[in-house]
């Protein structure tokens, strides 16, 4: 999944934030906080062909059921699409 904007993912004191870099700052003026799960998904995005790939990886990382994983992935991906961060 191609990320359309330039962000640096920073982990500070256990909190995750995306820092907009360059012209991305004109679209997103400020920090973009991420939950732990969202940060994990964000790290997978460039290699992820689809949501199923991310769900499988999430199930391997966290002790959650498939339904919860699918819901979390879908919610985050929908949000990213809303902001046109991914297509």
């Amino acid at each position: 999944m191609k990320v359309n904007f330039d962000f640096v993912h920073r982990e500070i004191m256990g909190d995750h934030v995306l820092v907009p870099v360059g012209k991305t700052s004109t679209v997103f003026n400020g920090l973009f906080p991420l939950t732990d799960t969202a940060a994990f998904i964000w790290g997978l995005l460039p290699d992820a062909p689809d949501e199923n790939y991310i769900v499988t990886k999430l199930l391997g990382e966290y002790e959650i059921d498939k339904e919860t994983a699918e819901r979390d992935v879908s919610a985050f991906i929908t949000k990213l699409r809303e902001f046109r961060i991914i297509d």
Partner: protein
Amino acid sequence: MGELEPKISTYLHNKGAKMGIPVSGTFELTRKCNFNCKMCYVHCTDTSKDRELSAEEWLNIAREAKKAGLLFLLLTGGEPLLRPDFELLYTELSKMGFMISINTNGSMITPRIFRLFEDYPPARVNISLYGGSEETYESLCESRNFKKVLENIKKLKEMKISVRLNCVFNRYNVADTQEIYRFAKENDLIIKPTSYMYPSLRAKGETGDNEARLSAVDAAKNTVLCRKLTFSEEQLRAKAKEMMSLYPPECDPDAEGEGMRCRAGKSSFWLTYDGRMMPCGMMTEPCVSLEDMSFSDAWQLIRQKTAEIRLPSECQQCSHKSVCNVCAAMCYTETGRFDGKPDYICDMVKAIADEFVKQFGEVGETDES
């Protein structure tokens, strides 16, 4: 025209202070300046012997600071845009993932710098606005750049870059206060006013005075004027009511002074042009050179020394404690001691309270009401 800090910034700073992480920092890239302001705390006319850190040295420090948790970075000077390698330095710092703000006098934002800000927009540009006319600029800064600064501010706004006006009111520009506020309002600009000026300890090596500053009472009157130009009648009356009911806090009369009240040395640091770390750029100590140790070791030492600082014990018993923003840098630059009672501040804060009550206190309202 005031400003609210984003919640995430407050959250990260508070967490940083608890965990001892330098979430924010200032890189004072140079103390050279194309202005020669009478009240400047850092600028010296003879900077020929200055050994400024190179761009590579700043970038190495930035890499270390990033690992330690630095997120909010302020680039300041002197005039940071005077550095010939500013473009390189700024671009590389931007790519590292910092939220960068820049302090500038606004006179050196060339077409190249505008293009740079187009490619890498800063989180905010803080423009020090020194007056409302060329004449004021000439008398205070020895520079006729007023119109150029205004034009540059407008261009930054057109580029949708967040701009804040930092306004330090003093003997030379106090008469321009209303004009500056009018300009800010007209251009929808945030304004950060102060009518207090630190003694120029770093620039002149002397505590206790700043030749350009207002008397404590005049500084108080201008502080109230700035609030009047910002807040509603209702807010001003509420403030006056607070000022009418000040009383000494209940505490042990022999209690020692409290520690630092701000973020300096808890979640933020200041690095001078020649690589010395301090909690705050207004003070000269505690101070640790990065020539002698790593960024992280320097930060730990600064934290430790900051924690030892105590403000005056007299402040603990003061009736005006709740409305006084006295800080360690004020005490130190005014008296040469962190626990020295800064009389100028005491006089100013009491005069602010009196002025509020005089101007906005309800008729018939008393301390007992």
